[in-house]
């Protein structure tokens, strides 16, 4: 019974991710072409109506998730792997450098995340800013959690047994400590992914996303907000897509966390 529920969540969340990444192929109509009057309501051939420039909202929703999702995946992957690697090292090593790394990560946690993201977005292009923001805001959290877990694992019987058969530090970390905390790492990756989606959406709403004719969920919110009275679907559909993406990622991370 439990297994089937896990499978259901995994399939649903995987489907949402796949749709976000490859939805453009299903659009059937170019997302940048004007096909109706601005904010035309839903009708035959236009299931969700038209947007500010009379473009098909459904086609734009299907096409507008790819860059955002790819960017968020890259950002979460970078933040999580940096944090996990740093945490394993900082928790294992008792040297001065490891303590300095912990102190530095604590210092980064004090900086307001949005300030860092804004600084990044005015100096580098949008996707790079999302990665930088997620890494600066997320990796220190991962590092802290992972370092504490690693430090505790040092004294478990299985790590001591590994040391007693002459395994080297790296081997102990990757053969014993990391597998034992696979659930933690999975849950953490999900958290960073949610952070990256939110950060990416926030920056794109502010206009740092892809240049105008390109479809983007967050940019669609901004473009179509003035016309919400005329065609609500033009705002609600991308908003729902964003929520669904974040929810699916959270669901996936929940499954990963429960696995161990």
């Amino acid at each position, binding site marked *: 019974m*439990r297994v089937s529920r896990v499978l259901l969540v995994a399939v649903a969340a995987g489907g949402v991710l796949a749709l976000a990444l490859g939805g453009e192929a299903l659009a059937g109509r170019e997302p940048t072409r004007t096909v109706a009057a601005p904010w035309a309501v839903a009708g035959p051939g236009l299931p969700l109506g038209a947007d500010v420039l009379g473009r098909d909202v459904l086609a734009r929703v299907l096409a507008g998730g790819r860059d955002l999702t790819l960017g968020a995946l890259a950002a979460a992957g970078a933040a999580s792997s940096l944090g996990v690697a740093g945490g394993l090292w900082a928790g294992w090593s008792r040297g001065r450098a490891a303590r300095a790394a912990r102190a530095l990560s604590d210092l980064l946690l004090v900086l307001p995340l949005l300030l860092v993201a804004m600084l990044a977005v005015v100096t580098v292009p949008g996707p790079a800013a999302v990665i930088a923001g997620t890494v600066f805001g997320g990796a220190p959290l991962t590092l802290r959690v992972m370092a504490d877990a690693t430090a505790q694992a040092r004294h478990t019987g299985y790590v001591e047994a590994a040391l*007693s058969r002459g395994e080297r530090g790296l081997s102990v970390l990757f*053969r014993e400590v990391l597998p034992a905390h696979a659930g933690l790492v999975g849950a953490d990756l999900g958290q960073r992914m949610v952070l990256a989606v939110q950060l990416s959406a926030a920056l794109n709403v502010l206009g740092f996303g892809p240049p105008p004719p390109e479809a983007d969920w967050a940019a669609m919110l901004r473009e179509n907000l003035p016309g919400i009275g005329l065609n609500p679907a033009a705002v609600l559909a991308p908003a729902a897509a964003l929520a669904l993406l974040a929810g699916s990622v959270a669901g996936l991370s929940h499954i990963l966390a429960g696995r161990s």
Partner: protein
Amino acid sequence: MSGLAVSGLTVVGPAGAAVVRDLDLSTARGEVLALVGPSGTGKTTVLRAVLDVLPPGLTRIAGRVEWDGAELRATRRWRRRHVGYLGQDPSSALHPLLTARAAVLEPLRVLGRSRAVRRARAEQALADVGLDPEELGERLPHQLSGGQAQRVALARALAADPDLLVLDEPTSALDPEALETAVALIRRRRAEGRSATLIVSHDGSVVAGLADRVVRLGMPPAAAPPAAPRAATRARTAGPVLAVGGLGLDRPDGAPLLDDAGLAIAPGEFVAVLGPSGCGKSTLLRALAGLHPVRAGTATLLGEPLRWPVRGRSVPALRALSLVGQDPLAALNPARPVSAALRRPLRLLRGLSRREAAAEADRLLAAVGLPADTARRYPSALSGGQRQRVALARALAAGPALLLADEITAALDAGTAERVLDLLDLLRQKEELAVLAVTHDKTVAARADRVLRIGRSMTDDRR
């Protein structure tokens, strides 16, 4: 009836196989019911099913649990008000960030008395189990010995004077004196007649001394003679396996434990280490294994000087010395199957091929009395006693010359413990395995060639 009544209890595992089948048991107030049976027959599972705290993967599919004649509904509230529970693993049972006193104070909150009253009761509860609240009250679990941690957990279970006391191996890590105190304490509660007690224990004398009735789970396993794992060829040297001189050890907080201690162990010799809880028995073993810092002292192993931290040791030294720790819960990596834990040392230290290692791992499991399908299982699917035997098999995998054994029979029933000790005897004869064993168990100590007693110094009783 008053007290606890369980009928038709059936618990199934993840694959739908019954772990506990149609079990009936009851214990009235003023009564002690003992659950006994070989390792892996579901004793702990029964306790958890009764308390409705089964871990994921186990499901209660049938059965009725009644308390004072009414079927239990709100089990969380019932547990909080009426139950004192002592889990199997002393060092994992305590919250790592709560001091001993705070741990005992925690269940007292439900009483709603003033802070001073609760504090006094907590101190009394600690004193009742033979711990000095002044000395140990502010210590964190990692600063307590296994026996002390178990007694803190017992004090916590007893502190609020629960109506139902559920004890899972409450005495596995206790020395005889502490055992006496604990048994007397439980007997006193029984005499007061207000509370019911459910106890799981492998210690026959504890069960005989306490229980009004005994429920037996599972069939006793067929007593096949232990088959020794294939001898690992090893260069022998004359003289002692291990000789240690001038050893000085400190507790983690810096207080001295041992000064100028020395010991020598001959090939094939069985030396038992005895001493009160907290005197440094486990620390001595861990230090010899290179896992605890050593203040002073030198050692030679098989004629070669032995380096202290384990990381500096050569492959022959690593092979020759292996440790089985006290805590069966953390001994195995939860993310790796038993086979991985056994094959790795075989491949790394004995240089076996993948096929040879797999065959040898099966032989090791058989030697400690575990079925071959254990290799595929994960630690979460094993009972405490089964995990302990896997840990022992892992320690024997490298073909050691000296086994450092910390309470290796504590989680085992009498029959299985006997079998494990027989296996060690066999290895001592055939391969001259020397054993240095920390134990509270008199039957283990009785098999030893000699006994080391630890106080501030060590004394050696030759037999």
